[in-house]
């Protein structure tokens, strides 16, 4: 990866990397090390004595029904968010890739929700689905549906999935559109000779999009795992009765509210392993499939 022609200077390169390296060491490696270190220690509730306990924090966490419940919530939540935002993104991208007028206008109108913060998206949907003041919340009640996301766990989960997916569609739309536009016209035109639009989509376009799809799959899972903290914090606070407490939300409650460092660190390390696995998978797969 180095260039053939380079500058010779013994000191300058170290000066140049120093700022980034300093920030990386202090705010990435030190805390990550601390998380791993804390995850094998047990502290008494008063913080007076600390004991090395091997993997006890991990076994405690993985046996904790609350943690397993939070895993279940995360699985449902991230599957739903990924499916909805990718599905809608692909649908709109396919439509915008059709040779129609005003494609640029649509593209602009579909791009801006990316700018909405997850927490702000939550506030916008809260205003609509609030049981007593929200326009749709009241409409649901009017239809005889007992709508109250503050008491009903399933409804709460539906609402956070909606708020989290809504703002993520733009991202998927842009990547799918870029993917579709990189498919050579000649391939698509050849396929029109002997296949209808449905068949053409499933057996020609979708397979050619697989690198984009796989990439987006990983990005969306990571988004649903971590970036949606704001949505949940603003809408439900993990409730009711932990129905919307995802893994990252639990790290927050256990570490910041309950001050259980050992458990929170063990949870962080588990999350870390999940991210590393996902990123590694992505690199392996995208690297191999990028030239089709």
């Amino acid at each position, binding site marked *: 990866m180095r260039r053939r022609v380079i500058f010779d200077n013994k000191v300058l390169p170290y000066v140049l990397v120093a700022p980034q390296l300093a920030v990386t060491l202090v705010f990435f490696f030190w805390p990550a090390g601390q998380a791993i270190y804390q995850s094998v220690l047990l502290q008494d509730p008063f913080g007076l004595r600390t004991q090395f306990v091997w993997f006890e924090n991990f076994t405690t966490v993985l046996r904790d029904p609350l943690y397993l419940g939070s895993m279940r919530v995360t699985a449902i939540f991230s599957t739903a968010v990924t499916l909805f935002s990718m599905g809608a993104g692909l649908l709109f991208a396919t439509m915008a890739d059709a040779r129609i007028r005003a494609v640029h206008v649509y593209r602009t109108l579909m791009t801006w929700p990316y700018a909405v913060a997850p927490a702000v998206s939550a506030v916008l949907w809260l205003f609509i689905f609030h049981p007593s003041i929200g326009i749709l919340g009241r409409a649901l009640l009017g239809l005889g549906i007992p709508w109250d996301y503050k008491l009903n766990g399933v409804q709460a989960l539906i609402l956070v999935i909606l708020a989290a997916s809504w703002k993520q569609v733009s991202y998927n739309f842009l990547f799918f559109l*870029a993917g579709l536009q990189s498919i050579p016209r000649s391939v698509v035109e050849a396929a029109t000779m002997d296949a209808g639009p449905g068949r053409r989509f499933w057996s020609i376009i979708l397979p050619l999009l697989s690198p984009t799809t796989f990439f987006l799959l990983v990005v969306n899972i990571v988004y649903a795992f971590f970036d949606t903290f704001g949505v949940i914090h603003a809408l439900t606070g993990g409730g009711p009765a932990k129905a919307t407490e995802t893994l990252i939300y639990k790290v927050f409650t256990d570490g910041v509210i309950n001050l259980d460092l050992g458990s929170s660190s063990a949870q962080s390390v588990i999350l870390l392993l999940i991210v590393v696995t996902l990123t590694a998978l992505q690199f392996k797969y995208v690297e191999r499939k990028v030239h089709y």
Partner: protein
Amino acid sequence: MAAPARSERWIPHFVLAVGVAIFVFPIYFALIGSTHEASVIGRGEMPLTPGRHLIENYAQAWNLGSPVHTMLTNSFLMAMAITVGKIAISLLSAYAVVFFAFPLRMLFFWMIFITLMLPVEVRIIPTYKVVSDLGMINSFSGLTVPLIASATATLLFRQVFMTIPDELVEAAKIDGAGAMRFFWTILLPLSRTNIAALFVILFIYGWNQYLWPLLITSSREMETIVIGIVKMIGTGDAQTDWQIIMATTIFALIPPVAVILFMQHWFVKGLIETEK
């Protein structure tokens, strides 16, 4: 290729129009909500059309106890510091890794690269502890510096720098340009569009931060607009001043949406290039 049948021509327009409507839907109600009185919204009788309290509500939101413009300024400064900081340190480190040969070069590169796998949320509690040990809680540097290191930006600039032809570097050296002169007068101008693209992505990333400012800032003077809005909701009952919250939400949406709309070309370019 045969012209698409008539039915195939209106389907895309229809589907896209529905999509756009779904996107605009919550914004429309936020706008409507910000033009009515608290009592009308509180009774659940908000009409579907704008009310007559627009100026009054926005003026009140702007002048509230914890003024919205302080929060907007905080968000803007935070987003700018993260954006400029990330771009600056990434340009420098990418330059070192690509244009110099020195011991530990690959180690440094991998140390930066691996941070790609550590989003701030994963290491949130220990990072908070480090920042607290350094006495940086409730400080602007505590809010921004830990978010500045970025493997993404470094990787992007590394890729850009690799495509610069050797002849150009040769020529600059023959003309007597030193390493820093080359960086300022040749490399930076050549990376302009990439810097612009990255700027859009990072500004939005910075503006929309939530968990980190929530932990690091407890004083009201430090509050960002996104955190401020969520705090205004409080318990979220009918007595809440929804019209003010909605007006504030509109204020919070204007800067990042404007950045995306006015720099759309660079935004799309930056998004696709940084992630791939």
